[in-house]
């Protein structure tokens, strides 16, 4: 319980009477250690909505994989246009100095739990443009990446395989997603 008010970013909120806030995450901690977490993970793994966010050549394969023919809907993987509705972000192409701030912001806009997939050589290591003056490499130092899908561009099958690996990781609870803990003070 905090004195006086609760801080939401910049804004200070008055706590209304008869309302109490908790900063411990009892429910979260309870679920985490119980078999319930398995159920939660099962649900998460089967609804991996990804953000259509084509950035380079790999982005075309990303578009193709979401519809008709390859139809990721079979695995509960649906393309969404908005970061707010998505669970998975794919970095599908060249990240440049100009785009990196925007990309970080898009990543911050996504709600947890969220995962990140590296699609293609460009995202993983810079690809053909690794030594260029305007690209940024070593993206894994910036984002918590779960799956790397090599290829230039990877085939849609490889992308599907990447998603399936991610699902396995989620079930095994080995993924790197950040689940916010209210005890850390972040709301």
């Amino acid at each position, binding site marked *: 319980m905090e004195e006086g008010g609760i801080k939401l970013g910049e804004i200070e909120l008055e706590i209304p009477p008869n309302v109490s806030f908790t900063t411990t995450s009892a429910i979260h901690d309870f679920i985490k250690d119980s078999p319930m977490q398995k159920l939660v993970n099962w649900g998460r793994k089967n609804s991996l909505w990804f953000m259509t966010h084509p950035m380079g050549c790999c982005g075309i394969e990303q578009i193709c994989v979401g519809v008709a023919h390859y139809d990721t809907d079979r695995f509960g993987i649906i393309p969404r246009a908005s970061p707010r509705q998505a669970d998975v972000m794919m970095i599908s192409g060249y990240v440049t*100095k100009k785009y990196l701030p925007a990309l970080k912001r898009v990543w911050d806009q996504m709600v947890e739990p969220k995962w990140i997939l590296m699609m293609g050589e460009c995202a993983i290591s810079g690809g053909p443009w690794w030594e*260029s*003056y*305007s690209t940024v490499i070593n993206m894994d130092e910036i984002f918590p990446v779960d799956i790397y899908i090599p290829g230039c561009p990877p085939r849609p099958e490889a992308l599907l395989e990447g998603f399936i690996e991610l699902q396995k990781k989620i079930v095994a609870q080995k993924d790197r997603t950040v689940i916010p803990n209210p005890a850390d003070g972040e709301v």
Partner: protein
Amino acid sequence: MGDEQAAIQVIDKTIMIELSDKFPDVVSDVDVPSPNRAIARIDPSKVHEIMQFLLDKGFDHLSCISGVDYPPDKMEVVYHVTSYSGPLVITLKASVPRDDPNIDSLCDIYWNANWYERETYELYGIKFNDCPYLKVLLLVEEMEGEWPLRKDYAGYPNPT
């Protein structure tokens, strides 16, 4: 189509001669390497008049403006001008000094010169006088002044 093509060909053959007749001291090294290509060197101070002349002659499409760096002392601005009704591409090269590269802007003749000029400016540092909006287009703003496509640019390969 046949007649049209023939008419265009006639224009093609004469335009370079007309150009060098009209601007005798300004246009030099005229070369016609293939039927659809012509190359000439021009004086950078007269680029505006030459382009206006070409536009009046029907060369209504500016394909491209590029910079080329020849260290240590000169840079070139290369214009590719062509027409919507004929296959001839005229390549015009203007040399500018490398320590103070500047040339007149073509924005008031060809509308689409604007982005090409901005691009050449940010990559080579060539200033286009009277260009209405000369600032970086492709690079991050902090990189203005690094001129990455010059041959002596130190940031390539990227050290990271």
